[in-house]
């Protein structure tokens, strides 16, 4: 008998760690990985609520999140590869051409 709130707080913790990793890390691939972590945290929240309300809609949503995450990971990694080819670096601080 675990209160649903605990699942939600766990998800919140994972989400915050994901944001922190995004801010701290310098390798662009690691930043991608932290994005995946954030998505997972959100999935956990949805599943917890689906269980609480006894509705399957939450799980359907998780399904779609997973699909989108897969597509996004594929395209994103392809972009990273092409950036590496041109800039020869994976350091995110070096990618500042949008400076005003």
């Amino acid at each position, binding site marked *: 008998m675990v209160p649903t709130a605990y699942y939600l707080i766990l998800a919140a913790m994972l989400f915050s760690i994901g944001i922190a990793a995004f*801010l701290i890390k310098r390798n662009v691939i690691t930043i991608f990985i932290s994005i995946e972590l954030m998505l997972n945290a959100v999935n956990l929240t949805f599943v917890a609520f689906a269980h609480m309300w006894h509705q399957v809609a939450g799980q359907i949503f998780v399904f779609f999140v997973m699909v989108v995450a897969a597509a996004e990971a594929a395209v994103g990694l392809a972009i990273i590869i092409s950036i590496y080819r041109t800039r020869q670096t994976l350091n995110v601080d070096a990618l500042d051409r949008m400076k005003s």
Partner: protein
Amino acid sequence: MSAVQENYLWLIPLLPLAGFLINGTLGRKLPRVVVSTVALLFTAAPAAIVAWLWVTMCSAGAPDAIEVVSRPWIAITGLTVNFAFNVDHLTLIMLAVVTGVGFLIHIYSVGYMAHEEGYWRFFAYLNLFMFFMSVLVLAANFLLLFVGWEGVGLSSYLLIGFYFKRKSAANAGKKAFVVNRIGDLGFLLAMFLLIVHFGSLDFSQIFDSITQHPEWQAQGAHFLPAICLLLVLGAAGKSAQIPLYIWLPDAMEGPTPVSALIHAATMVTAGVYMVARCHVLFNSSPLALTVVAIIGAVTAIFAASIGMVQHDIKRVLAYSTISQLGYMFLACGVGAYAAGIFHLLTHAFFKALLFLAAGSVIHALSGEQDLRKMGGLRTKTPITFWTMSAGVFAIAGIPPFAGFFSKDEILYRTFTSPNPLHITLWIVGLLTAGMTSFYMFRLWFKTFFGEQRAEQQEGSVHESSWIMLLPLVVLAFLSVVGGWIGVPSVLFGSNHIEHFLDPVFANPGAAEVVASTSGHGLELALAVISVLTALAGFYIAYLFYYQKPGTAAALAERNRPAYALVSNKYWVDELYNVALVTPLLMFTRGILELVVDRGIVDGSGAAAGATIRGLAWLERKQISGNIRSYAGWLAIGAAVVMAVMIFGRLHWGTL
């Protein structure tokens, strides 16, 4: 039939408006012939409609008044104002003056302005003036009258400043408009009071309300005199009475046809018309009537005294106009509204004639306006001479010309009025009549008689073209016969005009009683006295300016201070300048310009610019191109949004 008439009523003002639009927009490109045809056509048509109106309304069984109402203009709780025209006998007379004399002056202008640039502009403005003046006299409520009132002020400004390249003309236009505005303030305040106390601006509603409540006058209700005095302020501004007459002499900077039409026959009479139209209102306040009479009489003699020593032919006529308007005000002030309107009618004839003839004289001398440089034109410009003579005799009040009957009627009614000041007013009026006769004949002698003092070669002084002379002849004819509609019973006439205006000024009590009790002997005696005064003026002018030409100058030398006082117009303009204009300018320049305009307005603009620049500088620092910093700002932004969503619920309910 009345339905048909009503439809045509709208054409009277709208046709000149159409003329204004056509000439105003296309006139620059059109040839002069087309411009004048348009202007004349759109002025002749209303004149024809007015003539037809006369025929129908004078026929047996015609109603005393026609009213035409359109869709509502303002329809809110507490006030309803419609576009409504009202035609009664008073309106008929005014319309005849406006459209008839207006049409004649249009014809004259075709010849007078033939060599001026801006020809199309002149006729456009003239048509605009006709539109507004028609609206003014046709209006059936105060607001629509005010529209016409303001509009003629605007047209006057545009036309006075017609030669806008001349600084004096531009200044004169400004002066006219500003002084008019002061009067308009009075009119506006009167309208506000009317709305407060009567809930309506409709003439018929207000006047019926007053007649149904005679106890208001008995109890001494304060609002009635207040309204009347404010209206008098407005009329004083428009009709150039003391203290707001100062614009009219300067208005002579405009072309002569403008002076004839606007500043003699029509616009300046709007104030008199308004007082006559509101006679019910004024009759309820004896105080206001006395004020009107005093203002009229004082202005009359004041302006006449200035007019006696002016050297510019148009200035003499301008002061004469002010003086004659004073007569009309005097008439209204003693309750003789019909006499005032009668004088308005005859004055329109002979004053327009005088101005147009003066224009012809100026034209003949190629622009010379100074009396001291004129003379001997009698032989050179005969038709101008004869027509102008008709006008001069008319204004001097010599029978059987027009001015005698109307002026005499006013003087008689002043003498026999129940007003406590009636003797004083009569004496003032009589003296003014003498002075009028004097200065008009002075002008007559100096212009047409004696040796030619103009610096012209002999051959270039020429008579004007027929197109300018035709209106002169018509107006001269009217100046001669125009008074015959008002011949009083004592002189074996039947005073048509008084009876014509009876449905409007129906006040059977006072007038008839006075007429019957004083008897014909008094009237005849007073008439003889006024004729003698006029002849005295003629004789003195004859002495000074024909027989012994140096007398006037010698007299002026001996009474130097008096002469200086009068020839400098009693320094009224300078007084106003020091007392009112200079402090106002100091306030405007010092406080409004420096503090408000430069400080606050410009300052806030500059402050807004500086703020934006500062914010932009901050923003530039933030957009560093670094992804992680963007992520940082995102995180904090998300936190703020979440906080608002969570805690906003407590303060603002469901979010």
